[in-house]
């Protein structure tokens, strides 16, 4: 196939996966929160199961007026959402859906993920500054401080996985989990890293992921009750929708990364290597769905932390724990 | 040589099948390398060296304040020691591992670990007795302000002891030797608020240092004669009977010096003075270090180099043996006598320990390797049991003195029962542990005598008398402590289970350990110890000599009976008891033969006074003189300099200052404080240089 055609197909696939994933997640969030908090609306919109609710929300956002504050730095203000959504999109490039179903199996896949996802901080900070609004600026600064603080435990958790897998390629990490761990009576048993010594790392990763996504209980940057909407305050219409989609897309993306690193990705015990290309995407999606449900569950059950508690958790607990986890992973690697 | 087929049989059979009476025999045991179990034996040395630091740093935060780490360590050592012992019992192990850590000239400095019958026995002993004592210590030290520190130092002791025991060379042995000395010093002075305890610690340390100096000298002589610090190299020379070796020339002095070192640690006369004072430490320390393990280091050293001393041809250390035997004999009797007059129950046991160490040393001197070490083995159990029992009593009555005790039989039944078992084991009643081990020593001495050694008969006599002495003072201690009326002021009651369970455990060992070596019946212990890299002869009894048993039993019956007559509380009044304070003997014993006073007045004070005077004199005249002289010289110089300064230098400086100021006011036009200007100028310089380079 022609290189450019292939590229186009890949881009379209990524866009579709991301958009559909985001919409489904939004719908799931509405349904789950409705069940958790007995909200009426999502039950009935559109007749059955409230399927029309996300669509209605989307339509509402799209047809709203696209406002840009007069005092704002227009160019930067317009650019910010693109950077955020780009960073969410770029992550999908390296996520493997099957041994061959991956856009680019980069040698340093995990590193790439961390690098491009750190770009969203830039977008958030740009949005906060360009809005020319003190709530926005505060929100942007909070977001930057939070994202930098939680990037470190995230990185440390990933380092432990990389140490154990011996590679940064996501496909390689999946392969490392598919490796037989030990044999019982001639049957080779393999286990994902969650079981194989990375339980602490998984917890650190998930906590840091929630913080990176700025979701409750770490949603200080956009805390409605304190900062109205933080860096999103001045955004409306299509640009707000982009931020919104970007948030849900990165939620799915980060769940996919966690599923790949800790839960074995597209791999499932008992399925032969040859069938993984067909079965893999569904396996991965099931795992992603589980993790997304976890994230939604967190959001609707926990209260928001205070800003100092947030920093405390990152610097005094997660980072030392992450370092310890690396040491443990090293020992584990050497001993086994 | 033993036929090859015998060596393929179980070693136990090989020993039972051995012919021959009085003399020794060649212990040609097929030894293995022990496999991974021996290879990983370094763990039992390293773990107790690491754990003390963990205890110091994290102990206070743990639920049991570090005790769990310490007792876990001892449990680990005990379990590993047991595993090694069982492995050794099924197939003998004798191997060593070394790592070279440095060199001094041609001497390799090595760290290693020996795994053979002797060291395995010690690993087992340290681990098992240590485990019981550590468990007990939790109850005993409860509420102590330095609880955590105590366990850190105690675990460090275990580490040092294992460094010593595992040593394949003299250097490592000395390192371990000094480590246990340090731990001993720390723990004797554990209650340092009381100055007497600090003194006791110092005394132990100093006395040991005197002996250690001899040990160093011995080690150096040994190393220079053999060309290596390694025991294996030395014993290889000994086994080869190489009369041309320098070791043959210096063998006597090397052996004597090493033995003096051993005398210090094992508290042999005349270095015994520190051990009774060391009872100032907490009782678990007395039980583990000053009864069961540390003080046996000297005996262990004799055992480690035993072929060197045994030396039937008299080429090497053979001449020293008679000295060893006599010193042991003197110690075993005369130190035992001192226990007659002690009121402090721990001191009674301390003198008893010295006396029993005398038995072991005498046995080593007689060439009875197995007997001496067997006594070391059984003694560790029953003496630590006795100390722990005494500790339990002390804990209950808040006094060390037997005059504050009495009648505790009913109030503390477990302590009483176990203490009595320990006593019976110590005095050597059939079939308790002491009977088998001590009688074997006496039988060995008897055999040495039979061989025609007059000294052998002399020491044999001392040993038989010693068994009476032992029975007497132990009977006295038991009667004064557990019978009659309670004379103290506290409200004694049985100790908690964390203290009584170790007592019961040790009592079981004290009762049964003797069965491991019944001459002529079953001697597994002998075959364990025979697993050595350099097999050797050994004096020991082939069967039970019932005549001797009768003699010794009569002696101990006499001792107990006399003690009963004099000290059984309902039987005699205090006035009658005073009758036994025989004029010359009693003061002599009370003053410990005036040896301590002799040291104090003869050595310590005469040295200390002049030494202090000399130091003062140096301080007053030399140091002060230098300081004052320097002051005078400096003042003179200063006067000279001032004159020169005012006239000559100031002129130059003022001129220079004016010049500097003038040029500075010109140059500061360039010195604007603007970093960017500096950057621009420096890059301009770079560009200029680059252009110049290109052009030229």
């Amino acid at each position, binding site marked *: 196939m022609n290189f450019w055609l292939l590229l186009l197909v890949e881009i379209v696939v990524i866009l579709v996966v991301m958009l559909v994933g985001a919409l489904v997640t939004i719908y799931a969030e509405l349904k789950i929160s409705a069940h958790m908090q007995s909200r009426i609306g999502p039950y009935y919109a559109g007749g059955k199961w409230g399927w029309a609710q996300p669509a209605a929300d989307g339509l509402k956002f799209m047809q709203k007026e696209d406002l840009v504050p007069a*005092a*704002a*730095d227009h*160019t*930067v203000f317009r650019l910010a959402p693109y950077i955020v959504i780009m960073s969410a999109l770029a992550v999908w490039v390296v996520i493997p859906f099957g041994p061959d179903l991956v856009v680019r199996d*980069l*040698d*340093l896949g995990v*590193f*790439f993920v*961390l*690098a*491009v996802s*750190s*770009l969203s*901080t*830039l977008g958030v*900070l*740009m949005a906060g*500054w*360009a809005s*020319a609004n003190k709530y926005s*600026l505060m929100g*942007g*600064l909070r977001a*930057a*401080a939070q994202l*930098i603080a939680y*990037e470190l435990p995230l990185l440390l958790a990933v380092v432990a996985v990389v140490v154990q897998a011996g*590679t*940064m390629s996501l496909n390689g990490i999946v392969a490392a989990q598919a490796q037989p761990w030990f044999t019982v009576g001639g049957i080779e048993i393999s286990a994902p890293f969650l079981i194989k010594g990375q339980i602490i790392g998984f917890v650190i990763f998930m906590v840091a992921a929630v913080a990176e996504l700025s979701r409750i209980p770490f949603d200080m940057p956009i805390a409605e009750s304190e900062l109205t909407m933080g860096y999103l305050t001045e955004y409306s219409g299509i640009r707000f929708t982009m931020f919104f989609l970007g948030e849900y897309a990165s939620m799915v993306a980060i769940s996919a990364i966690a599923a790949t690193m800790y839960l074995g990705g597209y791999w499932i015990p008992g399925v032969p290597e040859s069938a993984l290309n067909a079965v893999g995407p569904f396996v991965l999606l099931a795992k992603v769905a589980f993790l997304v449900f976890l994230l939604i569950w967190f959001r609707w059950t926990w209260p928001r932390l205070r800003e100092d508690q947030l920093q405390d958790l990152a610097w005094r607990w997660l980072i030392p724990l992450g370092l310890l986890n690396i040491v443990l992973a090293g020992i584990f690697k050497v001993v086994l | 040589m033993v036929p090859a087929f015998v060596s393929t049989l179980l070693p136990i059979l090989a020993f039972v099948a051995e012919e021959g009476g009085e003399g020794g025999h060649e212990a040609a045991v097929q030894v293995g390398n022990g496999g991974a179990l021996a290879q990983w034996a370094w763990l039992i040395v390293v773990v107790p060296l690491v754990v003390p630091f963990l205890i110091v740093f994290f102990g206070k935060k743990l639920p049991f304040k570090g005790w769990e780490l310490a007792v876990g360590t001892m449990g680990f050592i005990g379990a590993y020691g047991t595993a090694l012992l069982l492995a050794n019992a099924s197939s003998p192990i004798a191997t060593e591992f070394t790592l070279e850590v440095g060199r001094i000239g041609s001497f390799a400095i090595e760290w290693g670990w020996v795994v053979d019958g002797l060291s395995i026995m010690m690993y087992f002993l340290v681990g098992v007795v240590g485990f019981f004592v550590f468990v007990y210590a939790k109850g005993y030290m409860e509420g102590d302000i330095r609880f955590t520190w105590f366990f850190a130092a105690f675990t460090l002791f275990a580490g040092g002891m294992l460094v010593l025991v595992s040593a394949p060379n003299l250097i490592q042995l000395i390192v371990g030797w000094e480590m246990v000395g340090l731990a001993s010093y720390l723990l004797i002075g554990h209650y340092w608020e009381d100055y007497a305890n600090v003194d006791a610690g110092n005394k132990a340390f100093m006395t040991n240092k005197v002996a250690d100096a001899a040990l160093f000298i011995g080690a150096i002589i040994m190393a220079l004669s053999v060309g290596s610090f390694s025991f294996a190299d030395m014993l290889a020379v000994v086994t080869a009977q190489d009369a041309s070796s320098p070791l043959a020339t210096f063998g006597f002095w090397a052996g004597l010096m090493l033995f003096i070192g051993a005398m210090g640690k094992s508290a042999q006369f005349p270095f015994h003075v520190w051990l009774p004072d060391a009872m100032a430490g907490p009782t678990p320390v007395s039980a583990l270090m000053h009864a069961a393990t540390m003080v046996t280091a000297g005996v262990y050293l004799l055992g480690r180099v035993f072929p060197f001393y045994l030396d039937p041809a008299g080429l090497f250390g053979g001449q020293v043996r008679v000295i060893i035997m006599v010193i042991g004999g003197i110690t075993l009797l005369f130190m035992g006598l001192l226990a007659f007059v002690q009121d402090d129950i721990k001191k009674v046991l301390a003198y008893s320990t010295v006396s029993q160490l005398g038995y072991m040393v005498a046995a080593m001197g007689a060439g009875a390797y197995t007997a001496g070490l067997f006594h070391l083995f059984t003694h560790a159990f029953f003496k630590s049991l006795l100390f722990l029992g005494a500790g339990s009593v002390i804990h209950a009555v808040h006094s060390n003195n037997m005059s504050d005790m009495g009648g505790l039989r009913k109030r503390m039944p477990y302590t009483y029962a176990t203490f009595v078992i320990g006593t019976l084991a110590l005095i050597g009643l059939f079939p308790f542990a002491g009977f088998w081990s001590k009688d074997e020593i006496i039988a060995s001495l008897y055999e040495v005598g039979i061989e025609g050694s007059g000294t052998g008969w002399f020491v044999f006599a001392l040993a038989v008398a010693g068994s009476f002495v032992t029975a007497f003072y132990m009977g006295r201690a038991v009667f004064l402590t557990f019978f009659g009326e309670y004379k103290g002021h506290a409200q004694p009651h049985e100790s908690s289970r964390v203290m009584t369970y170790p007592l019961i455990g040790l009592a079981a060992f004290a009762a049964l350990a003797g069965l491991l070596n019944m001459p002529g019946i079953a001697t597994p212990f002998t075959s364990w110890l025979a697993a050595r890299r350099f097999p050797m002869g050994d004096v020991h009894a082939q069967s039970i000599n019932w005549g001797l048993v009768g003699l010794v039993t009569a002696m101990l019956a006499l001792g107990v009976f006399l003690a009963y007559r004099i000290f059984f509380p309902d039987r005699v009044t205090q006035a009658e008891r005073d009758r036994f304070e025989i004029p010359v003997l009693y003061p002599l014993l009370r003053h410990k033969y005036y040896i301590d006073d002799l040291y104090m007045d003869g050595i310590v004070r005469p040295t200390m006074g002049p030494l202090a005077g000399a130091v003062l004199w140096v301080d007053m005249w030399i140091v002060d003189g230098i300081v004052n002289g320097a002051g005078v010289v400096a003042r003179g110089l200063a006067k000279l300099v001032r004159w020169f300064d005012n006239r000559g230098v100031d002129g130059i400086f003022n001129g220079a200052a004016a010049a500097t100021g003038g040029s500075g006011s010109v140059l500061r036009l360039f010195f604007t404080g603007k970093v*960017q200007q500096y950057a*621009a100028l420096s*890059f*301009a310089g*770079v*560009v200029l240089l*680059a*252009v110049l380079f*290109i052009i030229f």
Partner: protein
Amino acid sequence: MHVSFEQWLTEVANYVFLALAIPTLVGAWMVVTSTNIVRAVLYLVVTLAGSAALFIMLGAEFVGWTVVLVYIGAVIILFLIGIMITRAPLGSHEELSHPATVKIPAALLSIVLFTVVAWAVADAFGGLIIPPDVGATRTGQLAEVIFQRFVIPFEVVSLVLLSALVGGIALARKDDPEEPA
């Protein structure tokens, strides 16, 4: 191997190079001349992204993504936070740069520097091509060299980072109000 300018123009990769180099240079130029402080720093992103892209083009993938992660993801963020905390105004401000009396000598100096060095480089390396068969550097190989040959510099750099961390905290923390500053 030398190539002439005509041969140079026939290679596709060189157009990619130009497509990356020109934004990089323009971004750098805007960094030093922009009158809007936040935009100046955002142009730095363009320059750094350009350099990262060039690294990836050269096969130094790890270095390229490190630039993205560390420079764009952290250093630029620090810059922006620094600007925002020091109350940067929105919009353009001429006083961000020195007046023409400084600009002209500085421009002259820069141009001379560029001319001299560029001439020297062209003279020495003009037309020497980078071997085309040099593939992407495997991260594993890089790691092996760092943790064997360069392990001591690596540890030293880690100490530098640690002291920078401590120093940054020590400098930036507010003094205890009870103690006189």
